[in-house]
């Protein structure tokens, strides 16, 4: 590229400016690292999911029924679906020798003995599959088995269908439909308290007393597009309604799939946005460095050209300068990215029960990220290369004309001289100053993005587990019950306060918009589940006695509904009524798509005055759970605090890891961009600083001048960063939000203050470095020659 002498000069230059070189390379490295880490993790996760789904033939729909005759139900379903399997699914309680506070529930799912199911086949990790017969054998999900130390050959005692059965474990397996297994109403897996066990079909029939019957149909829907398949599902639902449809959903709505796929989607988004932002900052900073370099090198450029070096050769020097830094950064980034990739996969393996989830090498991603990193360096070099290429030798050798007063004339004449000098530096090369400020602003805003996304996540948890859910215990019932029956249970377990909630699947329609969600039937003045803003003065869902509903704000936006509008509710259980109701208010909620209705609407919606399938209890006593668990109609019992603790653990693992990563990297970014901008200025002005020192100004006065400049940089950068960071977070949250889990944008003043303080601290640190550079440098020598 360039002659060996020039190569040596470049090497020396990079070494001389090693802090700058390293700082910019670090930013490129972080961009590359995040790009590699996130993109590769995304690919591995998506590939593992797709492979697993394909091999185990994931179902396309799940329909939960009260009870249906196996043969007829399958025959009917086969008209709209293929590969239909009928199965019995029941929650069972694990009986343990030791008494523990929180009962352990397993989801017992039947599998055909002697043959593999057509869909949702399990993948055995250990042991074997069921042979023909009715032996009391079981295959246990891996996470649950690990949590309880279960191995092939272990024995399990389950309370199933009202009696205790003993089961010999013959296998440990993974299932494509339970990659992320959630207890009803929960949003985090808790393998210690909830797991899955597969049992042979005939044994299940005997144990539950459901001979020749099924409680769930799974299979693949006919149709080439999602709308077609959804239509098929609706038809299927209607035709099966005589058997009592409890729930019907397709793969896209299947909880395990949703959580897994949302994570994959999130990775795809972040894997592009975040590295791009980092690379933009790298570009800005590197550009500033090279601009200055080429300005300073003008005599050198002139001499080289006068000596007869071709223009392209001279220009190549600056390209080589940028590319060296780019390559250094990219190399470090690729190495770091490989580590991040592995670490991320290790974390995901704890959350997702996916076989073959391993960190694989993806050459295409490496190539893309490599190209982007190098491209960033090349773009940054563009102007410098252009100038070096075009500059005629004579012009280059003349002293730089860069000292035209320009904008510095505009500085107020009454400013102290040093302030005028500092000010004029900023306005003398406005583009360069702007690039510096832009870099600082972007870096600061990344810091803000990290902190705000943390705040927002916490806000959801806080909202849900403190303001909305206020009970101690919640028990899910197998079927809908009258609220009276529920009260009796509460009375008998001696809970001081109890409330029943009915969750009714429904399609909500407004004009041409429709969404599938659920109606939540709540007491008129609920106290244990309060679904709205904490600052609302009214405690009712809707004004007492009025027959309307409240709608989630998110849902309202999707359906273009405003308070006062009427919506159509197509109830998907019981006698599948279609009811029009008025939306009286909108509420903020972050999980799921809900219509909140007072219990008084139950008769209108489901033809029953008080329909309940969830029991909420306020009771500090620990043994409530065991007593509740004694009721056969109770499917799972959850403790809100325990659940919140588990959620916290997960949040600290995933979110905090990501946020810490982002915040840490943003901090490096901020420090690096500040440092670079300041070091470049310092190099540019060192002759002036030396003159000032020779005149008798002291280090303190120079320090004050530098501090002033840095303050301007940090303050303008931060001022721009606050709105920018908020906007960016808003955009990211919008990309990330789904119907099932969404985050509000929460901006705490203390977070903004923290960012400002961080910027100030970094500014101070950079100032110390700059002052040290001046004090330590042999500034006497800067006076000697003409630069």
């Amino acid at each position, binding site marked *: 590229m360039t002659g060996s002498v020039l190569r040596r000069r470049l090497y020396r230059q990079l070494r001389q400016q090693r802090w700058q070189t390293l700082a910019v390379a670090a930013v490129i490295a972080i961009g590359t690292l995040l790009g590699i880490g996130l993109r590769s993790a995304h690919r591995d996760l998506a590939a593992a999911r797709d492979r697993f789904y394909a091999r185990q033939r994931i179902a396309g729909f799940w329909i939960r029924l009260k009870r249906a005759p196996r043969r007829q139900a399958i025959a009917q379903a086969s008209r709209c679906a293929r590969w239909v399997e009928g199965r019995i699914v029941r929650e069972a309680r694990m009986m343990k020798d030791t008494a523990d506070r929180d009962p352990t529930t397993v989801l017992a799912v039947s599998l055909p003995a002697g043959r593999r199911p057509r869909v949702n086949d399990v993948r055995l990790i250990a042991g074997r599959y069921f042979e023909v017969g009715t032996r009391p054998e079981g295959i246990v999900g891996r996470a649950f088995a690990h949590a309880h130390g279960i191995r092939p050959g272990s024995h399990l005692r389950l309370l199933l269908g009202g009696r205790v059965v003993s089961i010999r474990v013959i296998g440990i397996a993974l299932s494509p439909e339970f990659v992320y297994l959630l207890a009803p109403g929960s949003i985090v897996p808790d393998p210690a308290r909830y797991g899955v066990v597969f049992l042979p079909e005939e044994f299940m029939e005997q144990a539950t007393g459901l001979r020749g019957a099924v409680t769930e149909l799974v299979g693949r829907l006919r149709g080439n597009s999602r709308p077609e398949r959804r239509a098929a599902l609706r038809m299927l639902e209607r035709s099966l309604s005589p058997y009592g449809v409890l729930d019907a959903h397709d793969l896209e709505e299947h909880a395990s799939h949703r959580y897994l796929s949302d994570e994959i989607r999130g990775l795809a988004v972040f894997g592009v946005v975040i590295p791009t932002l980092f690379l933009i900052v790298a570009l800005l900073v590197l550009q500033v460095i090279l601009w200055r370099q080429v300005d300073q090198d003008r005599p050198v450029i002139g001499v080289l050209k006068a000596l007869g070096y071709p223009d392209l050769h001279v220009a190549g020097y600056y390209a080589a300068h940028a590319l060296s830094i780019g390559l250094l950064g990219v190399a470090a980034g690729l190495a770091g990215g490989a580590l991040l990739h592995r670490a991320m996969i290790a974390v995901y393996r704890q959350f997702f029960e996916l076989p073959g989830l391993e960190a694989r090498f993806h050459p295409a991603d490496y190539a893309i990220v490599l190209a982007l990193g190098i491209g960033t360096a090349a773009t940054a070099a563009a102007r410098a290369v252009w100038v070096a290429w075009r500059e005629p030798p004579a012009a280059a050798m003349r002293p730089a*004309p*860069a*000292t*035209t*007063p320009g904008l*510095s004339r505009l500085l107020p004449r009454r400013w102290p*001289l040093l302030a*005028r*000098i500092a000010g*004029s*530096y900023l306005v*003398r090369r406005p583009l360069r100053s702007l690039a510096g400020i832009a870099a600082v602003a972007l870096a600061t805003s990344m810091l803000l993005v990290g902190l705000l996304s943390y705040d927002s996540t916490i806000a959801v948890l806080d909202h849900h587990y403190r303001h909305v859910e206020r009970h101690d215990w919640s028990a899910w019932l197998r079927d809908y019950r009258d609220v009276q029956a529920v009260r009796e249970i509460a009375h008998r377990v001696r809970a001081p306060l109890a409330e029943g909630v009915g969750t009714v699947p429904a399609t909500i329609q407004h004009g041409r918009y429709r969404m599938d969600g659920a109606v939540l039937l709540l007491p008129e003045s609920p106290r244990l589940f309060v679904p709205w803003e904490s600052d609302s003065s009214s405690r009712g869902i809707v004004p007492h006695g009025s027959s309307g509903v409240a709608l989630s704000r998110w849902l309202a936006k999707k359906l273009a509904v405003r308070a006062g509008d009427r919506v159509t509710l197509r109830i998907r259980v019981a006698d599948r009524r279609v009811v029009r109701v008025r939306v009286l208010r909108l509420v903020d909620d972050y999980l799921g798509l809900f219509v909140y209705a007072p219990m008084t609407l139950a008769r209108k919606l489901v033809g029953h005055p008080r329909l309940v399938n969830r029991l909420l209890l306020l009771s500090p006593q620990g043994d409530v759970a065991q007593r509740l668990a004694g009721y056969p109609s109770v499917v799972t019992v959850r403790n809100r605090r325990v659940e919140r603790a588990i959620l916290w653990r997960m949040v600290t693992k995933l979110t905090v890891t990501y946020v810490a990563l982002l915040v840490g990297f943003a901090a490096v970014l901020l420090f690096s961009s500040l440092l670079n901008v300041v070091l470049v200025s310092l190099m540019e002005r060192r*002759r*002036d600083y*030396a*003159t*000032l*020192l*020779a*005149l*008798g*100004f*002291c*280090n303190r006065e120079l320090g004050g001048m530098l501090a002033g400049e840095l303050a301007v940089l940090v303050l303008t950068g931060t001022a721009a960063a606050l709105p920018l960071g908020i906007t960016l977070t808003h955009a990211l949250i919008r990309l990330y939000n789904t119907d099932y889990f969404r985050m509000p944008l929460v901006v705490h003043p203390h977070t903004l203050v923290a960012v400002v303080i961080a910027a100030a601290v970094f500014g101070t640190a950079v100032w110390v470095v700059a002052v040290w550079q001046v004090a330590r440098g042999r500034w*006497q020598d800067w*006076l*000697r*020659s*003409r630069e």
Partner: protein
Amino acid sequence: MGGSRELADTCVLRLERVTKRYRQGPRELTVLREVDLSLWPGELLVVLGPSGSGKTTLLNLMGGLDRVSTGHIRFGELDLATATAAQLTHYRRHHVGFVFQFFNLVPNLTAYENVELAAYLVEQPLPVDDLLEQFGLADRKTHFPAQLSGGEQQRVAIARAVVKRPALLLCDEPTGALDYETAKDVLGLIQELPERFGTTVVLVTHNQAIATIGHRVIRLRSGEVVAVSRNETPLAASELIW
């Protein structure tokens, strides 16, 4: 010993066995060796020597810009060899003026402001306006360095150096970047300084011809003083020919 102390009391600056070495990798380079020198009030001293002989280094040591390796530089009670950084700054601030070969004006300050910059440092500076008028820069006050000729820039630099009323004015090849006629003008200005402002002036040059305008000339070669001579009748700068 007592005699030399008496001398030190009356001279402006006294260099005693000043040696300066630079470390270059594993080797040490001796740039000045055992220089003894006294500067007298109101004197114009010319330091003459070929390029690389250590003139700038010597000037920097006298001006408190750099430190000796061994030896002493006494300014009254102060020994620059052992002075603290703050003392050195104070010394430069109140007692020394510098004029450089490449002017070293602050590019984004006007001529007036460049002088003001130095005036700001001391309690009783010379009036900036008067000074610029005396130096023939009355109509250049609001110009920025880039808008001034080399000679004008150097005049501004000289004004900036004397405005502090320094005891010592150190000029490092002040005409090195100027053409013949302009150089003579500037030298004329410098030659008047001891009388007009009562300062001691040290003028560094490699130009033999210029040496004739000084009261005293010391010759430097490879870091050593090889000769000291006195001009009983210094030549006027305007009569110089080279």
